[in-house]
Structures are given as structure tokens and as C-alpha cells.
């Protein structure tokens, strides 16, 4: 039976012979009240600590999460500060590296110029030396050739000049000089 039928049907029955449609019987109230007290007491006794523990754990967990979040926040702030500091360092390092590169480039350039100058001077010196040597060799060859031609000319001249009369003159001259040399 539904509630509506109970309410509607309440007018049809004798209130003295039936239960009040609103209030239960007294004994029922007493038994019910006692049962409720017992049930709530049991619940309080046995389920209460577990519930309290669960609430306490939840609270602790939330607190831990809050603490973790706080720590993460401070770490993030620290990291941000570190990154900002590192960024500053990177800029300084970049400047230092650029300056060092400029310095090295300047040194290399100066060294290269000096080496190039030395090589040019060396090449000039060698070229000059080779030119002098070549000139000397050519002079030597020329002298040898002149000497050879002169020797041939002397041989021909002597062969043409030393005739019989000259031979006799040379012999007489030799005899005279040897005799005079004593």
C-alpha cells in the first residue's frame, strides 16, 4: 500500500481501533528509540575511530600535498632564480668567449702576417741567392769556356810560331842561360 492510499484511507477507519497514522505506538517508540540508540552507539563505538582515522589521514594527505605544493613552489622559484642567474652568466660567458675569440683571431692574424712576412723574406733571400749562384755559375762557365778557347788559340799560335829558327833560338837561349846560371 502506498502512502497516498494510507492517508486517504485513514478517514475510513476508527482511530480507537487502529494505529495513528502519524505517531507509532508508544512501545514501538520505546523499542525503536532503544534500538536506534544501540545502533548509533555501536556505530559510534566501532565505526567512529575508523572514520576519524580516515578523516585524519585525509587531512594529513591534503596537508602533505599542500606542503609538497609549497615546496615545489619554492623549488620552482629557486630554479627560476637560478635560471635567471644562469642566463646572466651565459651572457657574460658569451661576452667573454667573444672577447677571447676576438683576441685569438687578432693573435692568429698577427702571427700569420709575421709568418707570411718571414716566408716572403726567406723566398726573396733564396731567390737572390739562386740568382747570385746562377750568375756565379754562368761566370764560371764563361771563364772556363774563355780559358778553353784561349788554350786552343795558344796551342795553334805556338804551333804556327815555333819553326826551325825558333827552335834553334830556344836551344841556344837555354844553353846560354844554363851556362850563365853557374
Amino acid at each position, binding site marked *: 500500500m502506498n502512502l497516498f492510499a494510507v492517508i486517504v484511507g485513514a478517514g475510513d477507519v476508527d482511530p480507537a481501533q487502529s494505529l495513528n497514522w502519524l505517531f507509532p505506538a508508544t512501545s514501538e517508540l520505546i523499542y525503536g528509540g532503544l534500538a536506534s540508540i544501540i545502533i548509533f552507539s555501536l556505530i559510534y563505538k566501532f565505526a567512529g575511530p575508523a572514520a576519524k582515522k580516515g578523516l585524519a589521514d585525509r587531512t594529513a594527505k591534503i596537508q602533505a600535498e599542500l606542503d609538497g605544493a609549497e615546496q615545489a613552489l619554492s623549488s620552482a622559484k629557486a630554479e627560476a632564480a637560478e635560471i635567471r642567474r644562469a642566463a646572466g652568466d651565459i651572457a657574460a660567458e658569451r661576452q667573454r668567449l667573444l672577447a677571447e675569440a676576438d683576441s685569438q683571431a687578432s693573435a692568429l692574424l698577427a702571427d700569420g702576417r709575421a709568418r707570411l712576412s718571414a716566408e716572403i723574406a726567406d723566398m726573396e733571400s733564396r731567390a737572390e741567392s739562386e740568382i747570385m749562384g746562377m750568375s756565379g755559375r754562368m761566370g764560371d762557365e764563361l771563364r772556363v769556356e*774563355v*780559358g778553353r778557347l*784561349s*788554350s786552343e788559340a*795558344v*796551342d795553334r799560335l*805556338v*804551333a804556327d810560331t*815555333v819553326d*826551325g829558327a*825558333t*827552335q*834553334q833560338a*830556344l*836551344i*841556344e*837561349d*837555354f*844553353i*846560354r*842561360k*844554363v*851556362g850563365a*846560371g*853557374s
Partner: protein
Amino acid sequence: MSDARIEGYARALFEIARAEGTLDEVEDELFRFARSYESSDALRSALTDEMVPAERRQAVVESLLGGKSTATTIQLISMVVGSGRGRDLPEVIDRLVSRASESKDLAVAEVRSAVALSDDQQQRLAAALANATGRQVNLKVVIDPSIIGGIVATVGDTVIDGSVRTRVEELKSRL
């Protein structure tokens, strides 16, 4: 050949020529032959080739000197060549000449000239060399066209060089 053996040959030749009474002539002929031997490769080769029989080498000597030299000279050279000592012939002869000159208390004067010297020139040259060296000389004239002109005289260790060749060489070296 050892020095003693060369000396032995020279002494033997000297004694034979002196015994024959032709020492001066033989000595002169031997000296001339030695100079010819030194200047001729063909002659040296013919007289020293051991593949050629000794009789053949001696026949070469006789054909070269026959009618131009005394029999003693030909026999002496043939003896040395036949005994297989042709290579030492100039040295043996030079020793003989020295020995002959020493026996007469003379110094050997080897005179090289491009042309032949007359007897008068030889006498005057011998006198001049004697004056220059302080010893009488046994003049040995060698005709050597390579000196071109003038005279080169060698007496012992002394060389008097009046040759055109030497003057030309000096001139060439200066050039």
C-alpha cells in the same frame, strides 16, 4: 822484377858491354832504345806479350835494330826480352847507363829536345850543365816533340825546364 834482380841484369849488361869494349856506343844505343820503348805502346806490347813466343819477340828486336845498332846492343836487348823481362827493360838500361857514367865519374844528364841537337850544341850544353851542377855529365839526348820547343835537362834530382810546353801550360793556367 825486384830491385836486386834489375840491378843484377844491369850489372851483367854493363860487364858484357865493357868486356866487348863498346860500352859507350852500346850504352848510348840502349838508352835510345829504352826511350823509344817507353814512348811506343805497340813496341811495349810486342816485347812484353807472354803469349808471343820468346823467339818471335827476339826476332822483333833484331828486325828493329838490325843494321842500326851494334851486335852487342841487339844481343843484350834480345837476352832481356827473351828471358821475359821486357817490361823492366827501361829500368835495367837506366841502371846500366848510371853504372857506366859512374864508372867514368860522370853524372847522367837526360836532355829532352823537340829537335835534334848538333854536336856543337851537345858539347856546349854538356859544358853548361857541368858548370851548373859542378859535375861532368854524360849527355843523353832524347827527341821529344811533345815539349814543342826548347830543352828539358834532368841531372839526378835536378830538373832544368826550358821547354815551350811548360811555358804554354803556365800561360794556360793563368788564362
